[in-house]
C-alpha cells in the first residue's frame, strides 16, 4: 500500500478528522472576516488600541461609561428594538396566515405562490427600497392615485416617518418570515389535525391546541431571521426615515464615519451586541425551548 493510500484511509476512518476537514474552511473564513475584526472592535472599546493604531495595554471602561451616561443612547437602543419588534410582529401577522393558507388550503400552485413571495427578494435590497420611496413620496404613485380618486385632498405624509420605516422593513423582510413558517407547516402531519377533530376539537381549537404549538419552531426561526437583521437595519431608516427615526446602525455609522471616534463607536456597538444577544438567549430559553424540544 502506498503512502498516499494510507493517508487517505486514515482520513476516511477518522471521524474527528473528517469533521474538522469539513468545518475548517467556514471557520477559517469566519475567523478572518468576522472574529478578527470583532476582536479588534473589542480592543478599541476597551481602549486597547491607541490613535496610532497600535495595540497598547491600557484597558479601561471609560468609553463604556461615556456611552452609558448618554441618555440618547438608550433611546436609540429602544427605538431600534421598537422598530424591529413591530416589524417582526407585523411580518408574523401577515406571514402566518399567508403561509398557513398556502400550505393547508391550496392544492395546486403552492410553489407558484411561494415563489411570488420570493421574487421581490431577487431584486436588490437597495432597488426595492428606492422603489418604495417612489411609491410613498408626496408626489409618488400612492398619493397621486388617492388624490385623483378624490379620496384625499392633501398628500399623505408617509415618507420620512416611522410609518415609512416600518412599512419598508416589513416589505423587505416578509419573505424571511414566510419561508420558515411555510416549511414548518408543510411538515406538519395532517393526521394530527384529523385526530383532533375525532376527539371533538373544531377547527379553531384544533388550530390553537395543535397547529399553533407545533408551528412554534417555524415561528421561532422566522422571528430570529427577521428580528436580527431588522434590529441592525441601517439603509431603511437612512433612506426613508427622518432624523428622528435613526436606528442603532445609523448612529454607529455616524460615530465611526462622521465623528471618526472608533473607540466610542466600538463601545456603542459592543453594548448593543450584548443587549441583543441577551434578548435572543432569553427568547430561546422562554419560547424556544418548547418549540425546539419537539
Amino acid at each position: 500500500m502506498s503512502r498516499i493510500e494510507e493517508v487517505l484511509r486514515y482520513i476516511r476512518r477518522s471521524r474527528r478528522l473528517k469533521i474538522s476537514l469539513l468545518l475548517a474552511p467556514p471557520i477559517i473564513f469566519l475567523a478572518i472576516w468576522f472574529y478578527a475584526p470583532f476582536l479588534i472592535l473589542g480592543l478599541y472599546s476597551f481602549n486597547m488600541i491607541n490613535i496610532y493604531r497600535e495595540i497598547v495595554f491600557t484597558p479601561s471602561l471609560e468609553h463604556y461609561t461615556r456611552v452609558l451616561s448618554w441618555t440618547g443612547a438608550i433611546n436609540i437602543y429602544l427605538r431600534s428594538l421598537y422598530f424591529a419588534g413591530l416589524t417582526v410582529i407585523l411580518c408574523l401577522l401577515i406571514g402566518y396566515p399567508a403561509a398557513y393558507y398556502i400550505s393547508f388550503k391550496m392544492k395546486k400552485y403552492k410553489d407558484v405562490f411561494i415563489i411570488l413571495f420570493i421574487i421581490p427578494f431577487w431584486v436588490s435590497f437597495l432597488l426595492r427600497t428606492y422603489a418604495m420611496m417612489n411609491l410613498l413620496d408626496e408626489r409618488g404613485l400612492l398619493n397621486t392615485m388617492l388624490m385623483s380618486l378624490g379620496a384625499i385632498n392633501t398628500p399623505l405624509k408617509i415618507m420620512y416617518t416611522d410609518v415609512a420605516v416600518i412599512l419598508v422593513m416589513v416589505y423587505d423582510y416578509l419573505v424571511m418570515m414566510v419561508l420558515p413558517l411555510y416549511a414548518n407547516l408543510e411538515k406538519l402531519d395532517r393526521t394530527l389535525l384529523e385526530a383532533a377533530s375525532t376527539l371533538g376539537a373544531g377547527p379553531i381549537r384544533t388550530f390553537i391546541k395543535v397547529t399553533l404549538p407545533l408551528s412554534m419552531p417555524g415561528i421561532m426561526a422566522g422571528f430570529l431571521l427577521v428580528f436580527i437583521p431588522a434590529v441592525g437595519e441601517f439603509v431603511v431608516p437612512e433612506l426613508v426615515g427622518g432624523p428622528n427615526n435613526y436606528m442603532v446602525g445609523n448612529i454607529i455609522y455616524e460615530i465611526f464615519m462622521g465623528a471618526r471616534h472608533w473607540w466610542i463607536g466600538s463601545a456603542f456597538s459592543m453594548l448593543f451586541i450584548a443587549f441583543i444577544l441577551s434578548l435572543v438567549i432569553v427568547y430561546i430559553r422562554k419560547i424556544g425551548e418548547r418549540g425546539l424540544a419537539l
Partner: protein
Amino acid sequence: MSELYSVELENIVKRFGNVVAVDNVNLKIKENEFFSLIGPSGCGKTTTLRIVAGLEEPDEGVVKLHGKDVTDVPTHKRNIGMVFQHLALFPHMNVFENIAFGLKMKKFPKEEIKRKVREILEIVKLEGLEMRRINQLSGGQQQRVALARALVIEPSVLLLDEPLGALDLKIRQHMMVELKNIQRKVETTFIYVTHDQTEAMTMSDRIAIMKDGRIQQIGTPLQIYYRPVNTFVASFIGEAVNLIEGDVKEDGFMETRLGLVYCPESEIKGKAAIMLRPEVLEIGNKLKDLDNILNGVVQAVIFKGSYVEYRIEVEGTSFIIHKHGVTNTEKIYPVGSRVEIGWKRESSLLIPLD
C-alpha cells in the same frame, strides 16, 4: 320496529377524480359488534372508514350513527373515536395530555378528567406513564396511548385504521388478544380496517371483504372461510385454497380438466369452481372411502411446525395440502414420490363463476 344499528351506510359512493374508491357500499353494524373491513390495498376499506368518521365526504349515500343521519355532521360533532394507522399522537403533549385532550374538548371538569384518564390507563395497562413524552414510549405503548385517547371519550363507535400495522409480529399477536378483551370490557362498537386477515379472523364478530370499492361478502369468520361466495373471497381468506374450475354437468358431478369429479349437490349450474381448503385434502398411498381420489407427484414439502405443507401436481394442476398431527415417527412423503390425494364431496364447496 327495526333493530337499532350502531353504524349504517346506505348506498355510499366516493370518487377521487375518475377513480371510484367506494362503489355503492351498504353496511349495517350492530351495537357492540367487533366488525372488520378487510381487502387488498386500494379496495376502499380505509376510505369507507373515513366516511364513517366524517373525514371524507361521500359523493352519494347516507351515513347513520345510532339511526341518526350524520352525513352532513362534521367529524368533531359525531362522537366517534379513531385510532390512526400511524397513531397520530400529539408530539407536543405527554401521555396524560394526549389522553385528556378529548375530555378537555368536551369540557369535562378537571377532577373527572383525572379520574377517567386513570381508569382508561388501567384498562390499557399503562399505569404510571402519565408524564412520559410520546417519543419515550415503545411502539406497543404508543399503540395503547392511541387506543386510550380514542376510548376515554366513550365514543359511540371506535374506528381503527390498521392500528397494528407498525408493530412486530409478537407484539401484534399479543395486542390482538388485548384489543378483543378491551372491546368486551368497554362495550363499544369497533370497526377495524386491516389487510391482515389473521387480525380480522382473530378478533371479529363479523367481517366484510372488499374489492375495487365493492363489498364482496359479509359474514362471520367461519362463514367467510368455509362458505365464500366467490373465488376472490375464497383465495383472499385463509392461508391457501385449492380451486378446480369446471362445468357442473348434473347435480353432484362436475366436468374438469382432471376428469369427472364428485361435487356437492347444489343449485349452481354451468361454470363453477370446487373449493378445497388445504386441510380437508387427504394424502396417502391407498386411500379409501373418499369420493374423489387423484394421482399426483410431490413437488415440494415444507415442514411448518404444527403441520406439513405439501405441493402436489396432478396432471398440470397444483394442489396445496396441509397435513396436521404429524408425529416425528410418521412418514413424510419426499419430493418426487407418487401419492394419492383425495377428499369427500361434502368437505368441498361449489362456487359459481361469472
